């Protein structure tokens, strides 16, 4: 049975089912959404346990690495195929997506009261889009998923967002579109020229047979990299992110930070590095520089935020800087660190956004100054918030450290200077998160409205604890996850000539 296709399209099936519901059938819509996304997760578990970690050792292309591969003609005149498959890196991202989505959906039950059906509909379509991006092995298929997922996200921000939602949604979609247009040009170039004597969108074939001249690589790298850099987002293309996050509903922020941004970093590992290795080497210095600037800049700006959600948003810029730094270190430690850091960021920042959402629902404010002393009223909330903050700070024993440590070790081998600057981000992260924590949780309660706050509900507890399990797991025994991506990363390194 084709569990990969099942995983990708189950959410879409759920969305179609939902169309059959009456418009006011809120409860049914919620149940359908939660059920399908949970089933999707279950289906993806089959992939997780069926994945052979040993496959593809010493691979030089995708062909040896892909598992659960499906390849069927789609539009034959243009040689477009429905070609999907997973390697270690995409498996990790697929798992992250299927894991986070049901939690997001469950977490939205109380907060979304208007247009309930449409909201879950958009969410399910979004999931299919994201999963498709990670699994697609045909460039057109990839592009279709890439663009398709924009629409539901645009709606989630634009319809269910905060007061300034339209500005944020338009900014989000235009920023992304600008990048992806150039990528489309790049894809067309590959179609016509990559494999001599053949017109193909097939990524596996391009990996195998592609001969991309060095001069062309520079342009292609640029075209793809811009699309991905905006998505990551890398400094200085990051300004859509704080706006999108602040306006998006909680679950939108979680999925945006947790998974959507990873499409950018994934793009770098999947396309820019292995397909254009010579250009990648030429651009590596610049990319590392931007990554380091992002780390420090994001952290510094984060420090000054008065809105908790914006603070977390800017911290994402900093954390994704670590991912990029690792990827462009071009060695095992850096790239494995970058990969695991994608997952870490999804878990930790996702949890942070959820936590901000928890308190926002109770008090309808995200301003740090409106809180203070709430550790006394909400001890469970305070404890979990602390653990998640520590994971984001990079405390050893939790997940964040694994990623940051590997990235820095890797980066130090390539460029000690950049690594040392990046390591200072470790100090800043402690400053902005602990400072925020202190202002929100410690001290005496200064606002009367906070005295009536209630601690976490059962649903909230279950959601958060399930994320915490992985935060601790990756911190204590990262091999479970590192071993999945190892061969894929090695392949990229081989192609980079490492």
């Amino acid at each position, binding site marked *: 049975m084709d569990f990969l296709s099942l995983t990708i399209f189950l959410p879409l099936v759920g969305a179609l089912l939902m169309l059959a519901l009456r418009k006011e059938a809120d409860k049914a819509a919620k149940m359908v959404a939660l059920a399908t996304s949970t089933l999707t997760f279950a289906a993806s578990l089959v992939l997780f346990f069926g994945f052979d970690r040993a496959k593809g050792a010493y691979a030089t292309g995708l062909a040896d690495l892909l598992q659960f591969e499906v390849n069927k003609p789609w539009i034959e005149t243009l040689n477009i195929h429905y070609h999907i498959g997973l390697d270690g890196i995409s498996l990790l991202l697929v798992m992250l997506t299927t894991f986070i989505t049901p939690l997001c959906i469950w977490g939205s039950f109380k907060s979304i009261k208007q247009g309930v059906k449409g909201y879950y509909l958009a969410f399910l379509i979004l999931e299919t889009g994201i999963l498709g991006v990670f699994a697609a092995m045909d460039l057109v298929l990839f592009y279709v998923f890439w663009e398709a997922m924009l629409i539901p996200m645009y709606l989630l921000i634009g319809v269910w967002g905060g007061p300034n939602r339209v500005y944020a949604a338009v*900014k989000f979609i*235009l*920023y992304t579109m600008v990048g992806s247009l150039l990528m489309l040009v790049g894809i067309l170039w590959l179609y016509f020229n990559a494999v001599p004597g053949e017109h193909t969108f097939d990524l596996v074939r391009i990996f195998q047979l592609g001969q991309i001249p060095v001069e062309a690589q520079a342009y292609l790298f640029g075209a793809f990299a811009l699309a991905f850099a905006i998505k990551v987002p890398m400094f*200085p293309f*990051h*300004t*859509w992110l704080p706006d999108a996050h602040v306006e998006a509903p909680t679950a939108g922020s979680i999925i945006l930070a947790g998974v959507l941004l990873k499409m950018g970093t994934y793009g770098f590992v999947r396309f820019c590095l292995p397909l254009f290795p010579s250009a990648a080497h030429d651009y590596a210095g610049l990319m590392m520089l931007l990554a380091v600037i992002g780390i420090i*800049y994001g952290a*510094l*700006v984060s*420090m*000054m*935020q008065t809105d908790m959600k914006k603070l977390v948003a800017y911290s994402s810029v900093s954390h994704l800087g670590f991912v990029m730094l690792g990827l462009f270190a071009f*060695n*095992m*430690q850096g790239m*494995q*660190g970058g990969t695991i850091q994608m997952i870490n960021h999804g878990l930790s920042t996702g949890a942070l956004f959820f936590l901000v959402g928890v308190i926002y629902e109770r008090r309808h404010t995200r301003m740090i100054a409106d809180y203070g*002393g709430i*550790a*006394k009223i909400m001890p469970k909330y305070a404890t979990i918030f602390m653990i998640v903050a*520590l994971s984001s700070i990079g*405390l*050893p*024993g939790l997940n964040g*450290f*694994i990623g940051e*440590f*590997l990235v*820095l*070790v*890797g980066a*130090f*081998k390539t460029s*000690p200077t950049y*690594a*040392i600057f990046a*390591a*200072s981000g*470790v*100090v800043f992260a*402690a*400053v902005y998160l*602990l*400072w925020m924590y*202190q202002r929100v*949780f*410690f*001290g*005496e309660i200064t606002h009367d409205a906070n005295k009536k706050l209630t601690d976490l509900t059962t649903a909230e507890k279950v959601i958060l604890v399930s994320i915490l399990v992985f935060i601790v797991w990756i911190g204590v*025994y*990262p*091999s479970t996850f*590192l071993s999945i991506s*190892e061969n894929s990363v090695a392949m990229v390194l081989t192609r980079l000539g490492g």
Partner: protein
Amino acid sequence: MSNYLYLIPLVPFAGFIVNGLFGRKLGDRAVGFIGCTVIGLAFVLSIAAFVELLGYDPYQRHIEAEWFTWLAAGKLQIPFGMLLDPLSAVMILVVSGVSFIIHVYSIGYMHGDRGYARYFAYLNLFVFFMLLLVLGNSYPLMFIGWEGVGLCSYLLIGFWFTDDAKATAGKKAFIVNRIGDFGFLVGVFLLFGAFGTLTFSGVADQVLLWVDPKTVFFWIGLCLFIGAVGKSAQIPLYVWLPDAMAGPTPVSALIHAATMVTAGVYMVARNSFIYVMSPGALEIVAWVGVATALFAATIALVQNDIKKVLAYSTISQLGYMFVGCGVGAFAAGISHLMTHAFFKALLFLGAGSVIHAVQHAYNHTGYTGDPQDIRFMGGLRGKMPTTYWTFVAATLAIAGVPGLSGFFSKDEIIWKSFANGHSAVGIIAMIAALLTAFYMFRLVYMTFHGSWRGRRGQEDHLHESPGVMTLPLTVLGVLSIIGGWIMIPHALHGGAWFEKFLEPSFAVADEIAPMHGSHSLPFEYTIMGISVLLAISGILWARAWYIQNPEAPKKLASRFKVAYQLLLNKYYVDEAYNFAVVETTLGTADGLWKFFDVKIVDGLVNGVAALMGWLGSIFRRLQTGLVSNYALMMTVGVVIIIGYLVWR
């Protein structure tokens, strides 16, 4: 052997889990019992490990047990492994032993506190991380413990978090430590780059065969030392420790005196084979140590908060330990680490007993003052004899009075400074020793002697602390007295057993750079004699000023007002840091956000959008909807095309 080494840290961890998750339901008695039992078990296991180690030949005393591969990526392979050798054996004994005593004391001290379960959970967690720090067989594992104890320190300093000042102190500790950790991390990167492995024995093996230039050792040593400077509160990163006194007093005793703050010393000693490769780095260690020893001692001279005096004293004593390491006498540094753990833990617990009593008296008289200000104490000697006598024993030990533990360890450090050719360092260390004797006896006299200087009537409510608190004081008192007897040097016809026991841990260092120090006995006696004289003069000086002629220090303070204010305000270092570091960083961050992000980048983005909008509004005018307009345009177009075709 390898079967139970992990248990040493893991048993306290189990205590943390139980107390952390179920503490509130279990009730205070059960929490206290569990909290103490797990630490007691860890102590028993440590003794077993120590005894087993003694069974081996001295140079076979090196046991490594690897459990699983914790982190692997390419060449980087980090095992989760434990290393038991004389150095870590001493450390686990000191850590679990002192921890056990302080846990018992805490039962009394924290009695009735709302956060009783949380307190014991944190304390158990701390012991777990501390034991991991000293048992880990690689740099990254040590770093886990290193950061973990920092976290517990943060949580416990800000234990009473509703007080914003306490929460701020915790945060300050964490952040300042992070600056040090940054150095530690860079050191680890350098190590991996140079050796391709991160286990202690892996690196040590390669150091022995090293033929390349030795500059890298200087940088590794320096970076690791930055970490040590943060954790062990040395210049310039010591500023967090005095503030850390905001935590409950047993915490100050355990974390901020006896164990965690000595982690930096342990780390330097553990890396002896790195440091001996770089005399430059060792020189820095010695000088930072001695400078801190003197600097902190001068501040301690005038402080009026009982815990602040002890805090600066701790910073100063940690300086001595670094001096020991810096002059190549690693064993002497560790000796002082151990004796200091005894007498400083005792001093803090004694201070806790005093604060407890004074607070009790304040509560009974409805007075809300600061129960830690020694200007309003006095005469406690008769009220709390056990506290008094144990406090005196510890004070004599720290002052370096012959026969007590502190004498042997401190004297060894000073002697080795001279013997190994660092006379200047030795002389400064001697001056600091004089100051130490003075400020410690000032503290004793102001707190326990004379008569009560607080409100009248309060003294009737002063009582000795309960047995659960005084028993730990007594045990530590005995240790403070006899703890140094295993260190009696050959010069005094002792066996220097402790140094000999530690020797194998520094064998690699010794092989690389054997210390050919002076062995002149008369010289050693002279140094020892001067040390003793200085200690006694310090005591007499304090006696002269605070017992016989209490007006003298006040007169002096008003005569040298500037100097006095400078010391009282701790050289204004906090203010300078606040201005130079904190304000600058925040200013930059604010500028980056409000100017660069909002004005430049978003300005550009919105500018492009506005441009498009403007262009659109111009082209929109073409779409008039009037057929005649469109017809005109068409005609013009046709004319242009024909014209082009004709004239091209």
